[in-house]
């Protein structure tokens, strides 16, 4: 919750942060194949939208600075979406 941050380029570790967060708390299957993602709607985008909706963020499906900021906050280990 610093004052508005400039939208930074998503670093490599941010991609990992997003992947891990969505697997832990939004049931993203970590076996989603890269090829499958190209063919169907990307499950990461769908899960990211679910997370942004849950936290009242702008629902973009993209890991913007504010979304990453929320993902990096300490929290409970129980998923936000039913397993």
């Amino acid at each position, binding site marked *: *919750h610093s*004052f*508005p941050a400039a939208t930074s380029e998503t670093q490599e570790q941010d991609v990992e942060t997003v992947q891990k967060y969505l697997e*832990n*708390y939004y049931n993203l299957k970590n076996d989603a194949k890269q090829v499958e993602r190209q063919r169907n709607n990307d499950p990461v985008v769908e899960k990211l939208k679910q997370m942004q909706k*849950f*936290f*009242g*963020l*702008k*629902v973009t499906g993209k890991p*913007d*600075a*504010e979304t990453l900021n*929320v993902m990096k*906050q*300490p*929290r*409970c*280990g*129980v998923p*936000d979406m*039913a*397993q």
Partner: protein
Amino acid sequence: FVLTQGSPRWEDTHLTYRIENYTPDLSRAAVDHAIEKAFQLWSSVSPLTFTKVSESQADIMISFVRGDHRDNSPFDGPGGNLAHAFQPGPHIGGDIHFDEDERWTNNFRDYNLYRVAAHELGHSLGLAHSTDIGALMYPNYIFSGDVQLSQDDISGIQAIYGPSQNPTQPIGPQTPQVCDSKLTFDAITTIRGELMFFKDRFYMRTNPFYPEAELNFISVFWPHLPNGLQAAYEVADRDEVRFFKGNKYWAVKGQDVLYGYPKYIYRSFGFPRTVKNIDAAVSDEDTGKTYFFVANKCWRYDEYKQSMDAGYPKMIAEDFPGIGSKVDAVFQKDGFFYFFHGKRQYKFDTKTKRILTLQKANSWFNC
């Protein structure tokens, strides 16, 4: 609030709990006390009762573990995932695990054990995460100084187990809804070019990343400020914001509370002791004059001379005709004063002493 999928619940509402091991971060007594208070929170608003046992299997087993502790939900080292709990049921059902790689405290510092235990117990009793940021069942860790069930939490647990046997039904604080047309404010101030609105334990501000205004706990920025602030104003050329509650005030620079505060308003501004609190305050950047609003009167303080101007207090109507005889909050933006009273907001031109527009109090939140 959200009930855990399948609405699991304890059929027997008289439950036992056992603390299997203790974190070295706190004394045993402090851990016992934190856990006991967490149970009391939930038993005070429901028919549930909890008994601590020291031997054998209890309904809710509590332990401090780290890393992979063989429940297919490994912890992740310091930060991140702090604790988890299992929904009502036999064996691991209801159990709570705290990550021993965290530092557990009984104060402001990360992470307050009582605060986390109260949240995890909600899961042990059948609640899932809430989207209400003011609820204990919100997923992220926010410590606002006191640990209390919000109305959202109370409604959730009573949806599972019914009301408490308490003759007077307990109620909890409601989180303000930024687009509620009945929204009123305790205080408003500019701060480094932004606007911050205060209500109960929360601040609100417009933010390009949030579809609505951002709302969070005041303690996120200023953990030692009290809740329920009554007035606030910015002295821009000193990069200072002053917050008022009762006969005291605090001064902050950014997120730092300045040394030596809180101070008494009598000594610093020269108010008589008959003034018990300030309703609203604003400093005119162009003149260095700060206006304090107390009931139906206003005082004018000279920030350069650091003394009250002669001829004050005056009735509010003398200097600010048309805005009524009570002010909840006020701020200056682009040379105009914006006065708030109840759901109304008056844009006021101090040069012509005229009201320019009348709006809803939450018109700044793009609802």
